[in-house]
């Protein structure tokens, strides 16, 4: 095989890039995206927030999770523009002297991390069970789907609370700082898997009767390989929509659990914990401690939900 010249490579890349770019530009999804300014705004907000969370370690003025850098003497300072404000703290400090702006960035990171991981875990559980149920059918299917039915009768937040309580009891003795994130991820993962399982099961049942699956079976491929390599790529589409829609719910769940005092501890606050801390000072005039994390959470969830709604509509041919 002759090595292509640099020019040829450049040409290839350029044409490939152009095709990709134009393909995106002409796609329905992109068009519907451009047609909705609200969606674009929501996307921009989500991108900014995710970037802020990812880059928290670099853009935040302080590290609120490192107690050695937090000075109690700075506690409860109002935002910069208010009387008593301090130029170091744009939107003030919390009751421990943490820079609220940094705390929100880090809190955002925790909230997105827990929400994202929780939703992913839910997807993994749901997809696996859905594939298994759909592919094998019969008794396996019946058992998995009955469990799903039972779970669906309860609101996710209640299940998350229960699982949190149980896992906490099992992890007794492990400090909250270490156990909180895994416990929350498990709680969210186990509360949100049903929707994935049902969707995947439905499409798997359709796919498994198609020729390519029969062929793969004839060749003698083992069931897990067929499920993962052949069926999964064909049924994964709707999962993306559920992921986005569930992300908003998962973030709310995390925030709620932390607010209720069974989530992240005050030493490693998520947005929900910050709101819980601020709630204590609602009556004493330190309005900023609850307001800014609250606003951040509200805007984040709204933006994620708007994106989810748009994605559902864009990918759902019935509505188009």
């Amino acid at each position: 095989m002759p090595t292509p010249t640099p020019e040829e490579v450049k040409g290839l890349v350029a044409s490939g890039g152009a095709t990709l770019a134009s393909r995106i530009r002409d796609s329905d999804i992109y068009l519907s995206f451009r047609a909705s300014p609200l969606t674009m705004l929501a996307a921009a907000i989500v991108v900014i927030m995710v970037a802020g969370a990812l880059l928290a370690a670099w853009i935040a003025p302080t590290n609120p999770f490192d107690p050695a850098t937090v000075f109690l003497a700075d506690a409860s300072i109002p935002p910069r523009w208010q009387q008593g404000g301090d130029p170091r703290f744009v939107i003030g400090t919390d009751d421990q002297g943490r820079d609220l702006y940094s705390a929100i960035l880090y809190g955002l990171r925790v909230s997105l991390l827990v929400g994202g991981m929780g939703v992913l875990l839910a997807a993994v559980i749901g997809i696996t069970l859905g594939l298994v149920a759909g592919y094998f059918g019969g008794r396996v299917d019946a058992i998995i789907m009955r469990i799903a039915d039972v779970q669906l009768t309860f609101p996710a937040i209640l299940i998350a609370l229960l699982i949190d309580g149980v896992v906490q009891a099992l992890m007794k003795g492990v400090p909250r700082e270490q156990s909180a994130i895994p416990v929350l991820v498990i709680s969210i993962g186990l509360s949100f898997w049903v929707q994935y399982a049902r969707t995947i099961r439905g499409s798997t049942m359709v796919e498994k009767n198609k020729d390519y699956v029969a062929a793969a079976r004839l060749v003698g491929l083992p069931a897990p390989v067929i499920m993962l390599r052949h069926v999964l790529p064909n049924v994964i589409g709707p999962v993306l929509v559920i992921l986005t829609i569930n992300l908003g719910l998962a973030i709310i769940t995390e925030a709620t659990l932390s607010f209720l005092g069974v989530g992240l501890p005050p030493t490693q606050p998520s947005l929900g914990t910050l709101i819980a801390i601020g709630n204590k000072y609602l009556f004493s005039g330190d309005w900023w401690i609850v307001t800014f994390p609250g606003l951040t959470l509200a805007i984040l969830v709204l933006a994620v939900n708007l994106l989810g709604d748009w994605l559902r509509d864009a990918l759902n041919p019935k509505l188009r």
Partner: protein
Amino acid sequence: MSIRKLCLATVAALALASVSANAVTLRYANQGDLKSLDPYTLNETTANAHLGHVYEGLTKRDRELKIIPGLAERWEVMDGAKKWRFYLRKGVKFQNGEDFTADDVIFSADRVRAQGSNFQTRVPKGAKFSKIDDHTVEVELESPNPIMNAQWDTWYIMSKKWAEANNTAAPTPASATSPSHASLNANGTGPFRIESHQPGVKTVFKPHAGWWGKKEHNLDEIVFTPISNDATRVAALLSGEVDVIEPVPIQDIPRVNSSDKARVLAGPESRTIFLGFDQIRDELLESNVKGKNPFKDVRVRQAFNMAIDKETIKTRVMRGLSTPSPLMIAPELVPWPKDFQNPKFDPDAAKKLLEEAGYPNGFEVGMDCPNDRYVNDGPICQAVVGMLARIGVKVNLNAQPKAQYFAKILKPGGYKTSFYLLGWTPGTFDSHNVLYDIHGCRAEGSPRGESNVGGYCNKTVDELADKVLVESDTAKRNALIKEAFQITTKEFAYVPLHQQALAWGVAKNVELSQRPDNSVLLYWATKK
């Protein structure tokens, strides 16, 4: 229920509601629940104060905490404080109408010392109670004890007949699996009786018509509700839904004072908040230091003492409402508080001490902390975590509700902690209690050092404590106490933080007295 019955019930309920609206009702909300009505279940200030409306001891304490006669009119101390004789008040009736006699005292003395009582130390172990006549009781002690009755204001006398008739002669332990009659019902001699009791929801007190004492309140009813959430408790006071709250979160004091409905009664509390170390185990339960216990090294304890900035905790966390203290007892309770100084706040020197002790990079340790027991306990611990981080000690904070916290760190939980925050009010308002209970060497089968969670131990301190107990000359006694505290301070047995301020929110039309032990006693309350 038929419609007719429902209507009748409604009318009756409305009638009741309007009746109670005319009567003087004082509504009181506290942070904590009143879980058991059995006066021997839990030795805790709040519970003792609640039950002090219903039950009474042989002695009482007045508004200044001075011991005054209670169910005993007077008493004699004989035989070098080895024998006490109590002359009981005559004509006292329990709320169920029975007469109060010497039998009840002897019964209560047995019950309070029985297995399951949380008040066993109220009455010395070998004390023999004997009935001279129906209204005279003699107590014989194995060793002299001139302050035997110092905590008897919260050793409440129960009725023998009532307890036996209701199969509740044994105390209800805090770990009881089912409620006893005494934990849901009360029959005392006090100024109020329990009208109804819903644990965790509401308790209603009504005046006891046959009370022997002089009434100092004008109430027809006290309604107690626990409101654990700080903000909602304050809001309830400001909106006039409740008349008295305890505590007012310190950050809300200005707001309460600026309202036209209520005010804050604040003052120093006789409770000392301190940090303790596990210095008894050979290896800490929760630490990355293996094979040895860093807290056995006095230099480490000293470093912790120097690394914690009590002044900033006062100004920022406590909003000025605490008294930083070098002592493990409230300064008002000793004559020479000025002779003790807070160790200098000096993180650099602290770091050097850690280096000398062999921890140049610090170490990691778990910390237990309640988050609903003391004033801003959670934030204090968080602040301590930050301050210790600056000398290289990484603290893994485990802030938890008090029920879990106490179950873990106290004796029933096996003292399972490495580093903790605790508060202590000597029930006797005397140094001996502090030296004995939280500095005394722990030993199997002895109540000494029962609340000495970290297991600090110095035999000399124990000897001094024993001498303090029997010494009746005040000057000599004070000198002994001072000597003991000098030793414990020099050895940095603890990190005393501060006396917390007590802050009650009181409606403007209510008058009441505040005692520095933080007992909310509404039998001194009047409402306009």
